[in-house]
């Protein structure tokens, strides 16, 4: 029998039982849609997070921190009481391949204006160096970031000045604000405060990252040292001359050695690698859950095919009496499941894609994902991504599951003896 005839015979059998075939296909549609939706959202989320991270963490920078390390990708975390100081940048600057380094002191505090308070992160940095490292994100909305700031100069993130995103400003450029933090180490704890002059509002950064944040207030490092009463810094950002893996590795090692392995050095590449691994695991996990629903659909297909086999035993007998080979009977039945799988996968991919976009739309800026950051920074926009791998994988998986679960019924159909099948009532 020609393959076109086999296909049209299979199709005619499906057409005869539209509702049943439709419901069977629905099982595949749901499974594939779940896989596509989950994977494309995860893929989109990964891309968004990676982009955000790259904005704040250029590949040619390293972050040096103490103790437990900065977190993801930290090499050589120790957990001892070792401290980094602002002037440790001098040691780092002498290391080969280092073009510049910058100390950061930060505390959670408040900005007070017109009798109202807002919680912010107060970050002490060297404005010129910081602007040089984060040239795309530490950018003034209007005018320029003051490179030689006065003591009371304050640079604020977009969401500090415009927290409600509706044009009603908390304060604006040239306003004088009170900067305030609670010194918990003093006995008794006391509030420290000083009057700062808002010189610049930064452009909106969006999302979150390691670099400039929309909800931070930046003050000169020298002022921070005095204000926080310490020259101990939270981290040192190191800019390298290039982003070769070898340079990153050797410089990381040299920095650790310079501080007797008491510091952690984190590179963007390492963070990105770990992030990518984490997302792979998440994708595998979510894809696995969705795949289970497809397996359920597969069992549905098997069930329907066995019922169909029983109903059509006589028909199979007729086909065999007319000279159809066992192999062709097998192909006819597998053809039916292939058609169901193909239709299910195709509709499932489209539905999954639509679903992913609906989910992304619903959660856009709504602060459901990463609620805190979203509230403070303007939310993360997830654009679902349907990679060719996911597309082809879903298609093959849908058809594959359908065919595999139809193998047994199809094999049974092909093995029917014509005389017995014809006698079947």
């Amino acid at each position: 029998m020609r393959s076109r005839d086999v296909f049209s015979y299979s199709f005619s059998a499906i057409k005869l039982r539209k509702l049943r075939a439709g419901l069977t296909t629905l099982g595949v549609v749901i499974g594939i849609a779940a896989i596509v939706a989950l994977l494309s959202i995860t893929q989109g989320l990964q891309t968004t997070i990676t982009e955000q991270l790259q904005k704040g963490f250029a590949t040619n920078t390293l972050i040096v921190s103490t103790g437990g390390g900065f977190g993801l990708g930290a090499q050589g975390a120790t957990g001892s009481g070792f401290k980094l100081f602002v002037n440790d940048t001098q040691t780092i600057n002498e290391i080969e391949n280092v073009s510049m380094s910058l100390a950061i002191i930060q505390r959670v505090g408040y900005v007070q204006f017109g009798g109202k308070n807002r919680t912010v992160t107060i970050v002490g940095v060297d404005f010129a160096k910081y602007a040089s490292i984060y040239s795309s994100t530490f950018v003034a909305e209007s005018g320029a970031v003051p490179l030689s700031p006065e003591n009371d100069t304050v640079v604020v993130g977009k969401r500090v000045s415009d927290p409600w995103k509706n044009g009603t400003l908390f304060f604006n450029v040239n306003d004088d604000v009170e900067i305030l933090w609670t010194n918990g180490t003093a006995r008794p704890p006391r509030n420290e405060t000083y009057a700062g002059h808002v010189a610049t509002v930064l452009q909106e950064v969006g999302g979150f990252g390691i670099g400039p944040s929309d909800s931070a207030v930046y003050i000169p490092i020298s002022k921070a040292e005095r204000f926080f009463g310490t020259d101990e810094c939270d981290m040192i950002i190191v800019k390298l001359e290039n982003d070769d893996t070898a340079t990153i590795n050797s410089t990381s090692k040299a920095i650790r050695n310079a501080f007797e392995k008491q510091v952690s050095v984190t590179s963007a590449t390492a963070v990105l690698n770990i992030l990518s691994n984490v997302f792979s695991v998440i994708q595998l996990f979510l894809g696995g859950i969705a795949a289970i629903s497809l397996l359920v659909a597969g069992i549905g297909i098997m069930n329907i095919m066995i019922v169909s086999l029983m109903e059509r035993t006589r028909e199979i007998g007729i086909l065999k009496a007319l000279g159809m080979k066992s192999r062709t009977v097998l192909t006819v039945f597998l053809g039916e499941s292939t058609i169901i799988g193909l239709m299910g996968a195709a509709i499932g991919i489209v539905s999954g894609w639509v679903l992913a976009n609906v989910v992304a739309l619903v959660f856009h800026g709504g602060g459901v994902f990463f609620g805190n950051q979203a509230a403070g920074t303007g939310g993360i926009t997830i654009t679902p991504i349907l990679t060719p791998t996911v597309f082809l994988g879903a298609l093959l998986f849908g058809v594959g599951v359908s065919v595999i679960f139809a193998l047994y019924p199809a094999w049974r159909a092909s093995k029917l003896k014509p005389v017995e099948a014809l006698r079947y009532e």
Partner: protein
Amino acid sequence: MAAIVEAVNLKKTYMLGKVPVEALRGVNLKVESGDFLAILGPSGSGKSTLLNLIGALDKPTEGKLLIEGVNVSTLNDNQLAGLRRRVGFVFQFFNLIPRFTARENVELSMSIADASRAERRKQAENLLETVGLKERMNHKPAELSGGEQQRVAIARALANNPRFLLMDEPTGNIDSKTANEILGLIKRLNVEKGVTIIMVTHDQRLAKQAKRIVQMLDGLVAGEIVN
């Protein structure tokens, strides 16, 4: 004339649960090209079993069955399927595919034999004209009378230009007037087109229309009459 079908000491034993049932106990039979043979016998005499063996729907337990000189026992599943394509089978209960029209049912056996679409369509229309159903070829079996359905089944059996037609009680399920029409058609096919026919029946009157009658009883050929 050359023998198309030759059975030598043909035996077939079924297992009914654990009890062996000897349906054929040593049948000897020869059918020649152009023959019109009626196999007559009461229910349980083994006539349908014999027909199923000749139609390659089943394999004998013992003995030899030669179809055009080929021993059926030596054939594998695929070869048996190939043989069935060269045999036209007409069943008592028509066995048409309900979702297909008359024409599609006739075309089906040709599509199984790899015929092209154009070839199938032309042949199906010719055959349905031969059996007098050209006007109703686009009707499904449920829309046709018993006699019409049987005529579609005969057209389908003839579709691949078979070496012989096997008919299992072809008029057993239709009224006597229509049965006469069908019988007329069968005789015409035999006389005018030279189609070899082997027909199983328990109807004496029908059997008398054949050139030869083989009487079967208890799994054996009990006698033969040449009309």
